[in-house]
């Protein structure tokens, strides 16, 4: 057990394939990952909630180079109530102070996480997609497993499943960087330094719209993430993100499955 506890998740495959890991406490998340996770837990919440206050200042989204009240808006975000915003009563100036201060932590945190995860091979080992995983049958199976809330057990519980991988890749390499680029592109000072990101997105109002859409995607990700943590076993999941140690869920008891098969044969 002690030996297993010292192993890295990704090393697990390289040792005795036959051995059962069920019930073992294994080292699942490295320190940089855990640090980034909890930094983000605070930073992203602050960014989202101060962002909702900023949204309240002008709750209209447009496409194109410009967009003001008399122009056509494609979406009007709702007015966000005080419990959802930082600060809780209308104060655009203070919300901007929160937002633009934490933006530094957010942006450099992401950069550091990407660099460290390249160096410690977290990205290469845990986040690269294989051809087999992308096979439609495999994808469909994973979708079904998720829909039935069937969580992986044993060795399978130690690697990201395909939907997890796609989600994490999407969040880390697409949505979060887009939030930073679109956020920077809202700055007239930055646009004087370079406005090709703005040109790529079709203008400042488009960049602002994409910024809001990405923020919505992150909010959705947080809801999904917390829901799955609660369903998968919050104690084990949260511990693994604090200490790094994860208790491998034992394989399901054989009996119920067999009786299920029997009943299927009978019908």
């Amino acid at each position, binding site marked *: 057990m002690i030996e297993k506890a010292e192993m890295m998740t990704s090393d697990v495959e390289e040792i005795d394939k036959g051995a059962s890991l069920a019930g073992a406490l294994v080292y699942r998340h490295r320190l940089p990952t855990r640090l980034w996770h909890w930094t983000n837990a605070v930073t992203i*919440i*602050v960014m989202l*909630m101060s962002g909702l206050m*900023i*949204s309240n*200042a*002008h709750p*209209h989204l447009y496409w194109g*180079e*410009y*967009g*003001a*009240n*008399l*122009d056509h808006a494609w979406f009007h975000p709702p007015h966000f109530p005080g*419990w959802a915003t*930082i*600060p*809780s*009563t209308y*104060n*655009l*100036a*203070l919300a*901007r*102070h*929160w937002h*633009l*201060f934490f*933006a*530094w932590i957010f942006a450099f945190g992401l950069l550091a996480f990407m660099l460290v995860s390249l160096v410690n091979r977290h990205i290469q080992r845990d986040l690269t997609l294989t051809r087999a995983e992308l096979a439609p049958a495999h994808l469909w199976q994973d979708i079904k497993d998720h829909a039935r809330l069937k969580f992986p057990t044993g060795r399978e519980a130690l690697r990201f499943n395909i939907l997890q991988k796609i989600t994490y890749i999407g969040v880390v390499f697409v949505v979060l960087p887009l939030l930073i680029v679109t956020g*920077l592109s*809202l*700055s*007239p*000072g*930055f*646009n*004087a*330094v370079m*406005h090709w990101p*703005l040109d790529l997105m079709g203008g*400042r*109002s488009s960049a*602002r719209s994409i910024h809001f859409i990405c923020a919505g995607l992150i909010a959705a990700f947080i809801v999904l993430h*917390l829901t799955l943590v*609660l369903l998968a*076993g*919050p*104690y084990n999941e949260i511990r693994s993100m604090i200490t790094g140690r994860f208790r491998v869920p034992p394989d399901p008891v054989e009996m119920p499955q067999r009786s299920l098969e029997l009943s299927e044969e009978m019908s």
Partner: protein
Amino acid sequence: MSGLVTRRELVSGLAIGAGGLLSGCDRLGENPGFRALLKSGEHGNYAVQRLLQDRTALAEEFAPSQRSPVFRANGTRMPGGDDYARHLAAGFADWRLVVDGAVARPQSLTMGEVKGMPARHQITRHDCVEGWSAIAKWTGVPLKLLLDRAGVSREARFVVLHCADPQSNGTMYYESIDLLDAYHPQTILAWAINDLLLPVQNGAPLRLRVERQLGYKQAKYVQRIEAVTSLAGIYGGGGGYWEDAAGYEWYAGL
């Protein structure tokens, strides 16, 4: 069952935590020390943007066809008080643009003289701090030419723009920029928008365009340009009406 209880406890724990977070954030936001920490982000943004920006890096300019159909007016749309009303009735014939403070040759220019100076045309985007944008063509005299005419002294560090519109707190609107932005080629005192003389709602007869910053820096109804060594003694000391009144950033480059 025990798992369910744990979850319920966790959910209520999260709810209490979120509530605590919220009131905590409000209290933190009111704490002067923490507010100063948050504001250090502004100094960081100012420093980094000045580091990355070429001194004369231009804000994007647009084609006439890319202009907003209507350029939204914001803030003061009609300055209060008799003075402005008189000037408006007289077609700004007696309006004077004063350039003074830390300068060698204080100026007092009529609108005719201002319009007689070389003008720059630029089609630029106005970005409001609230999030909206509008594009228009501006015509006006580069601030650099006015400052050169007055001979800004070596010790001057900022340019303060004094405006003719009184605000609800009893002070007049004002703004200030550093000399780097003051001498920027796109920084002009505009007297026309989209080839027409500025209407009152857009700042008649003169407004500042400082294109690498947000909308509230674009002071309207400009009467006096003052070169200063420090912003400390001017109104609230924040360097602008919105900076003093609501705590907005003095450097509004983002």
